[in-house]
């Protein structure tokens, strides 16, 4: 019987601690490798932690709201290799509270194969490779071949076959567990039973659980529409609200109470994890990164025309293409043209291993203001996306940022950020670099300006762009060339729809 400890993995580059928000699996649930088992709140987002093993959750070692650290043991998982025998015991509840008991009764019940079953169990628990049973589909060939190769473990694979409903006719005789038949059947049927086993998980009870668990839709929060709207307007996570309505429905009063409870108190306030992360990152930026700024105006006439044209032909329901999408595409192109800016600075300037690390592809952060802070989700490989796809990706990413549902990978790997305070923003502003990135573009409010073009007076929609650059990575000349090229793209007509 294999019992595996699951540990808290490192999430992100800078995670030091996190809070356990909730368990996604309960004791007794079957967990498949890769399936989320718990949810952590790190400094920047909510992260689902996936199980690295397949098996049954037998013990949760961390409490909700507990502060957790990398490497903390989170749970005990009873892996599946030998437990099919345990489940077959029938008398044992599926939610076996103790792996030891499961093993015992499993072995004890397999009276016909006798010691063979026990040794089968022993094989599984002692040899980690036989915890092939961890992953239901892949375990099949291995346990079958084990069965074929070692006569001692043959009954085990037989019993496995017997428990698989899909192979019923054949395994009936095998699973009948007459020892005389089992060894003969096992080698011959290895391949066949592999395919049979690849359909259902290894045990009856287990399979029901596994299917229930994998296919169960995420718990829907019962909430009245007006309460949902109020919660959204106030950035209130409905999962934190207790519903007092019929069947636990969250109602308006519940959300109002939760908002009241959340109202800021007077006096010094401890930092939220979000504010702490912003404070830490910006302090690093301001104290360790020498930065300079170059500015230039951009004329939006061409972008506006293109945007109107493209939005008129969007598929129904597709998100509208915004100026940000044009900016992202233009930045991607400029970054690939000026790879010197598409990189990050690593290490202390004095240290021998200090280096400038170029990026592959254009990974651009988009600064998103969220409740009480900001997030910079990274849109990866922007150079591969047309404007419509970019709009879709950007809209989805921003939406999830607002809901704190970003994946950790979406907060990493960028070299450049875009900060656009929108139509209600200031005429011009400057930003500071978001480490470890090396540049950030601040986009001022678009407004009609009188400009001289070819000696004539024109009114054009203009914005002021301010590019802040990590001086360790690039110098003023490169930055100004980059910015000029970026403006050229924005004022031109070469767009990838």
């Amino acid at each position, binding site marked *: 019987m294999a019992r595996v400890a699951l540990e808290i993995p490192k999430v992100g580059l800078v995670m030091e601690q996190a809070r356990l928000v909730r368990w996604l699996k309960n004791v007794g649930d079957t967990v498949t490798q890769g399936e989320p088992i718990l949810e952590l709140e790190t400094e920047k987002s909510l992260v689902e932690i996936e199980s690295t093993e397949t098996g049954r959750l037998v013990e949760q070692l961390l409490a909700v709201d507990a502060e957790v650290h990398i490497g903390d043991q989170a749970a005990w998982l009873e892996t599946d290799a030998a437990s099919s025998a345990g489940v077959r015991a029938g008398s044992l509840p599926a939610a076996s509270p103790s792996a030891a008991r499961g093993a015992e009764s499993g072995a004890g019940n397999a009276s016909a194969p006798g010691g063979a079953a026990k040794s089968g169990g022993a094989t599984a628990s002692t040899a980690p490779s036989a915890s092939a049973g961890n992953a239901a589909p892949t375990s099949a060939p291995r346990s079958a071949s084990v069965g074929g190769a070692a006569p001692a473990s043959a009954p085990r694979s037989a019993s496995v076959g017997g428990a698989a409903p899909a192979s019923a006719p054949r395994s009936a005789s095998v699973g009948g567990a007459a020892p005389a038949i089992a060894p003969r059947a096992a080698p011959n049927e290895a391949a066949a039973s592999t395919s049979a086993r690849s359909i259902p998980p290894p045990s009856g009870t287990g399979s029901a659980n596994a299917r229930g668990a994998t296919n169960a839709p995420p718990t829907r929060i019962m909430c*009245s*529409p*007006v309460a*949902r*709207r109020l919660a959204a307007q106030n950035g209130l996570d409905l999962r934190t609200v207790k519903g007092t*309505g*019929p069947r636990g429905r969250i*109602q*308006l009063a519940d959300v109002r109470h939760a908002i009241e409870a959340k109202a800021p108190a007077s006096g010094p306030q401890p930092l939220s994890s979000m504010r702490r992360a912003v404070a830490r990152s910006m302090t690093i930026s301001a104290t360790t990164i020498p930065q300079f700024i170059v500015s230039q105006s951009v004329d939006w006439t061409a972008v506006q025309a293109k945007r109107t044209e493209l939005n008129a032909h969007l598929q129904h329901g597709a998100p509208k293409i915004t100026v940000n999408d044009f900016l992202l595409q233009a930045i991607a192109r400029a970054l690939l043209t000026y790879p010197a800016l598409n990189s990050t600075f690593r290490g202390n300037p004095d240290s021998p291993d200090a280096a400038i690390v170029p990026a592959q592809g254009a990974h651009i952060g988009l600064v998103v203001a969220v409740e009480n802070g900001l997030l910079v989700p990274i849109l990866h490989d922007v150079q591969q996306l047309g404007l419509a796809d970019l709009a879709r990706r950007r809209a989805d990413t921003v939406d999830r940022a607002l809901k704190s549902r970003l994946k950790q990978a979406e907060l990493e790997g960028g070299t450049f950020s875009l900060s656009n305070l929108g139509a209600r923003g200031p005429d011009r502003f400057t930003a500071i670099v978001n480490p470890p990135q090396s540049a950030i573009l601040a986009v001022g409010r678009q407004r009609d300006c009188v400009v001289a073009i070819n000696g004539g007076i024109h009114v054009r929609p203009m914005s002021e762009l301010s590019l802040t650059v990590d001086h360790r990575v690039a110098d003023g000349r490169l930055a100004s060339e980059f910015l000029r090229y970026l403006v050229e793209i924005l004022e031109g007509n070469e767009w990838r729809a």
Partner: protein
Amino acid sequence: MTQTFIEILRRALDEELARDKAVHLLGEDVAAGGAFGVTRGLAQKHGETRVRNTPISEAAITGMATGAALCGLRPVLEIMFIDFATLSLDCLVNQSAKYRYMSGGQLSVPMVVRTQAGAAGGAAAQHSQSLEAWFIHVPGLIVVAPSSPLEAYGLLKSAIRMEDPVLFIEHKRLYTMRQEMPATVELPPIGRARVARAGDDLTLIAYSAMVPTALEAAEELARSGVSVEVLDLRTLLPLDMETIAASVSKTHRVLIAHEAVQNGGVGAEIAARIGSELFDELDAPVTRVGCPFVPIPFAPELEHALLPGRENIVRAARELLGTQG
């Protein structure tokens, strides 16, 4: 001095007959006062040409009135029971409601079909129905259902002055209701609901005789601290969604009460429109109170047991608010 619904309604007809020579009354026994005595004395005062008895044929009365209206008169006909409006449906639905549309606006049918509806005093299954929902399904008609003598006074006068056919539903149970006639009554516009009682926790939508019942229920709920806003729809077609929206946006909970069965009722239409137009305002499912889906029984005890009353509304409101007991 207070007057009954019947007396105040008679006064409205009397004044309209005096005000406009085009106004005529038609119906079974109307010259003799009609089955409920609403038109008593009007034939003597305005003449039997203008207050005219008809044969017992709802189809004929409606057809005659429609023709008269097309020719420039403003007939007010009386269909003794809405149960018998079935016999006038062809004319009402296929003719009266269609002329304005089919003539491209050249013709109009300014007539009022007064009819009596609802259960009162053991009139049994064929004389007690609330069939208003049938009529709100017909474009071209206007359906009005007053909730009190004074409401009826104003709404009837407004209806008579409309250019389109109006079904004017008088609840038999309201006929004995008394109110004092003020010196002047402002005529309510057709198509506007009224807030019969202001409140914050729940919007209770009612019409016709269910309005006084709803007000009683609101009073009882107020004693346990629940603030109910009662809307009197007054006009069922067209629905005043503006007033409904304003109220629902305030209370976020809706209870609709009518005497008609729920199935395909006016409440179903209101609930559907709230569901689609005001979804984000809702804090609880829109709930309805209506008659059980059976014919109205003859036995007064059974009739009483069947009709939705104050207790039904209070119970539904408490369930909706999650404050049982």
